[in-house]
């Protein structure tokens, strides 16, 4: 595995930065080098924001922005048409969108030639967590799609990240949402 760059799109308050960190932390459990950082700037509730994850088997010695991601994840479908989510993504890249309608309509909107995946992560989050927070579900789906991280390590990283911040019940709900996304993502 060379250097992999992931760009996460969402809105302030949706856990975009958390998702970027969580994926990185899970990858670190597998012995990889990682970096996770938000788009540099003011973060306002509801405003479009980005975050980034870099993972690599070799030490990461770069501190400039990500311009040509290998993978893009869109946590909020209302960004489609508002933000150019495929910017810099090459045709052999991957995009995963939190999207409730059929895959063909998503492909039409994106006009992207590479691999497109859809997951109704908001619905899933409402069912499992009780709140429309799609970050952990989307990250769980990405585990399945890319195989970059083992699901066991991803769940372990999730527990580690949330155990001091969330009640035990909420941590379990997030784990369930991740597993449901892992098993339910479609191409």
């Amino acid at each position, binding site marked *: 595995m060379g250097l992999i760059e992931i760009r996460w799109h969402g809105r302030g308050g949706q856990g975009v930065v958390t998702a970027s*960190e969580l994926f*990185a*932390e899970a990858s*670190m459990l597998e012995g990889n*080098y*990682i*970096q*996770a*950082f*938000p788009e*540099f*700037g*003011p973060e306002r509730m509801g405003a479009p924001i980005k975050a980034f994850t870099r993972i690599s088997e070799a030490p*990461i*010695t*770069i*501190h*400039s*922005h990500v*311009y040509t991601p290998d993978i893009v994840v869109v946590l909020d479908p209302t960004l489609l048409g508002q933000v150019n989510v495929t910017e810099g993504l090459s045709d052999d890249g991957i995009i995963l969108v939190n999207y409730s309608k059929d895959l063909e309509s998503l492909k039409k909107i994106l006009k992207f030639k590479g691999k497109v995946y859809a997951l109704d992560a908001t619905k899933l989050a409402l069912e499992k967590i009780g709140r429309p927070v799609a970050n952990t579900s989307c990250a769980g789906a990405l585990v399945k799609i890319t195989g970059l991280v083992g699901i066991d390590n991803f769940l372990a990283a999730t527990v580690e990240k949330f155990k001091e911040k969330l009640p035990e019940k909420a941590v379990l709900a997030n784990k369930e949402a991740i597993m449901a996304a892992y098993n339910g993502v479609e191409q």
Partner: protein
Amino acid sequence: MKMVLSGNEAAAYASMIARAEVIPAYPITPQTKIVEKIADLIADGKFNTQFIKMESEHSAMAAAISASLVGARTFTATSSQGLLLMHEMLHWASGSRTPVVMVNINRAIAPPWNVWADQSDSIAQRDTGWIQFYCESCQEVMDTTIQLYKICEDNDVLLPAMLSEDAFYLSHTSEPVDMPDQDAVDTFLGKFDPPYKLDVENPHSFGSLSMPHQWYMEFRYKIALAMEEARKKIVEVDREYGKIFGRSYGGMLDLYRCDDADIVLVAAGSMSSTIRVVVDELRENGAKVGFARLRVFRPFPAEEFRSLAAKVGTICVLDRSFCFGYEGAFFTEIKAALYGIDNPPLVRGYVIGIGGRDVTRNSLINIINDSNNPEIKGPVDTWVDLKRC
């Protein structure tokens, strides 16, 4: 213990593992997370320290100096406008010979408002008598903060030190960071035990009047001598730290693939790691390029630059700040350090990344290509990636 930490969090944990006893601070973007994380660590019962939320940065530094004078190990953190507000007190800290350790997040100065990476804030404090370090990674922030207590609290040094890390590129970027064991750090640092301190049982006067015929000039001379001692101590401590903890950072000037280099880039801060990537790439294509990272700006590594200059043809100096009316500070100082040597290299100056503008691979390749451009006459700064204006 291996953790994933941002540069801000690494600084907060480092203050804990170094057992800072008093932390007066005032929050400012993008340093805020340092203050928040320290508050968390205290609330969780992990960090036993006296945290004082001050009403301004000027007061924060005044409190830090006072705490240090009674013999407490002291930490604080700030950025940009906050550092500028401290300016008067920075002189007071070095004049009082208080080894306060401070993390500064390098952020641009307003107006216009800009909270992104730019080293003008710390460069403007060059002459305050503070030791100045610039870090490249979150791990180095952790390790250097610990090293600084060892350097500054040495009785031959007793000067304050400022560790700078770039806004967002380090302050908000999460990376794997290994926090050394508490016992090992305790042994490494020992207790802060200054020879003179504010003590009701053994009174001394600090900061009193010294007239022209008395000792003021000698006090200043002693600071100059202490800076020279710091020079040796910085190299020693980095070497010792490497032996104990397995990581060291090149002492004063961190040389990367410079041995047979024709062209060497010089820079400080987070762009260093991007430069390393470019150097590796060009080396694979046979270009003899190297990199010298300015880890310490005060005391200035003049001797290290003279040794380097004897071996290379061209030095390209990258400044993430500018001193209006002249040049980038690194550019000016490196040229001055090389005055009078035999066969000096060509030295070129580049102003780059001002106000957080991204320093990319392409910007760096352009600089290296430009360094042989015969149309550039004499040592003048080139502003990189400027838009038409």
